[in-house]
């Protein structure tokens, strides 16, 4: 400590009771938001690397669904696809559900983020972060950005599996860039929502259950069968729930088809979910702990 002691103290500014110190103290949080978020992102990326089993588990889910739906149900479901002369086959069905499966990949990783956020909140280091002069929300931003990167990797792997199974499309580079862009946006919005769920949960178990609807809702959307095939009531729900325009737009972009008003609906839903999720998470995290 002796050589350290000879250096000047980081915060050896004279204490004053006037406003100047306060300005400096308060200003630090905003000035360093980006830097603190980058620091927290590095921390979360290290966590993801050190704890790969969660990523593998989360990734296995959409891949299993893809294999199950293509090889078990794919022949029958493909035959029922509309707009194909003489009915479709297994490979048509693969093309049909791949966008939905990519969406489920995002949802699966988002679910994992609820778990990792809730787990993180049980550790003592979060209390330490609360006593630091940092942009506090960076703790959450780190989780969200880490999840977006993890989602990116997962989506690439799942897409590669789909290609291995025979997925081909007429989509150009622009279309695929659109797919990537929209998936990132979806990941960003769903993750802010699940970070909130992780913070709101009173236990890690609860945190792993509450976001389950993210895995169920894609089934009641245009993801696995055309919504026209559903009975009235369910069909209206499927047509108007937020995930349908997202999956429709992913499908249009990935197959080289023109996008329609669903694109703006998808972006709008993402923006709304992200904003509400962010505000909710921030409020939960910044509230003073109850005990």
């Amino acid at each position, binding site marked *: *400590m002796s*050589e*350290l*002691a000879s*250096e000047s*103290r*980081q*915060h*050896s500014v004279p*204490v*004053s*009771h006037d406003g100047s*110190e*306060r300005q*400096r*103290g*308060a200003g*630090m*949080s905003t000035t*360093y938001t980006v*830097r*603190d978020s980058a*620091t927290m992102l*590095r*921390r979360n990326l*290290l*966590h993801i690397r*050190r*704890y790969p089993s969660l990523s593998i588990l989360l990734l296995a889910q959409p891949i299993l669904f893809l294999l199950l739906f293509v090889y078990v149900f794919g022949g029958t479901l493909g035959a029922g696809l509309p707009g194909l002369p003489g009915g479709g086959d297994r490979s048509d069905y693969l093309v049909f559900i791949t966008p939905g499966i990519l969406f489920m990949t995002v949802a699966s990783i988002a679910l994992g983020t609820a778990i990792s956020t809730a787990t993180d909140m049980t*550790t*003592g*280091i979060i*209390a*330490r*972060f*609360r*006593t*630091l*002069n*940092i942009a506090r929300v960076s703790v959450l931003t780190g989780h969200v950005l880490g999840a977006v990167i993890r989602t990116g990797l997962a989506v690439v792997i799942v897409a590669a599996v789909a290609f291995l199974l025979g997925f081909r499309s007429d989509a150009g580079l622009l279309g695929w860039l659109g797919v990537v862009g929209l998936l990132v946006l979806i990941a960003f919005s769903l993750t802010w929502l699940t970070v909130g769920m992780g913070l709101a949960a009173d236990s890690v178990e609860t945190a792993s259950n509450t976001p389950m609807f993210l895995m169920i809702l894609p089934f009641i959307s245009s993801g696995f069968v055309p919504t026209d095939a559903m009975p009235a009531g369910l069909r209206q729900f499927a047509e108007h729930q937020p995930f349908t325009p997202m999956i429709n737009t992913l499908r249009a972009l990935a197959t080289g088809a023109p996008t329609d008003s669903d694109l703006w609906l998808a972006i709008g839903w993402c923006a709304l979910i992200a904003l509400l999720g962010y505000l909710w998470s921030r409020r939960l995290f910044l509230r*003073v*702990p109850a*005990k």
Partner: protein
Amino acid sequence: MATTNPAIEVAGLTKSYDDHTVLDGVDLIVPEGTVYALLGPNGAGKTTIVNILSTLLTPGAGEIRVAGFDVRREPAGVRAAIGVTGQFSAIDELLTGRENLRLMADLAHLDRTTATTSVAGMLDRFDLVDAADRRAQTYSGGMKRRLDLAMTLIARPRLIFLDEPTAGLDPRSRRDLWAIVREQVADGVTVLLTTQYLDEADQLADRIGVLDGGRLVAEGTAAELKRRVPGGHVSVQFTDAVALAAAAAAHPDASTDADALTLQVPSDGSIAGLRRLLAGLDDHGVAGLTVESADLDDVFLALTGRAAEARTAEEISA
């Protein structure tokens, strides 16, 4: 140190949950560069005070300034000045020791070169060089505590809060930790520590506040507190029963142990009192003599009407 500018100023601090009162009007002043120990049993309110002073909890009522900043209105200023090592390990177990320190250096907004130097310096000072690149979850209790403290100190805070810093540590680790605290104090840092270990407060603190049921029941230096309570005595050991009986007759307030040939004479610790006692003793009849002052255990008992809960610490360190 500038006593005009206390590091911590607390007046009339209260905190309660529903109808349960945790802090019931605490007044506290800690001058810069001094060590203040909050001594009390579990549930006395020690951690609540630390949490309020470190902006983790909002106070009920009272005026609270830390490093000159109001904890309610200027929490960012408070946070920029303080470092906190809590009762429970605040390290990231998935990261290595080096990564943990680097994380804190980055969050303290140190520049790259300073951060690297500081991390290396801390690993060296806290004897963590060999374990630097191992995950913290593999560390022993003592190593985790050292890493925890190093993470607090890497930002060079002017004021540190140590909430039961040596709870659960073995005697050697405790002494290591005490040495680190003393170095900080020598460097001008103000320390507020909580402890239920009486000897720890005695060892480290300039002033001690005895907290019981959310109130400071006594405050002062260790010596002042000891003086406030009876319990000091002079033990005189005699060579034979006759000499013991003679001395016992001269000191009716003393207690006699006939088997050990010992007489315990109450003492206020003053030289004059001791001189009077010695004057009345026969040189040839006395085998030995011990002066014992009250220890903080006696103080605690006298002030709160019951013994401190954690006496084991004294046994461990003995």
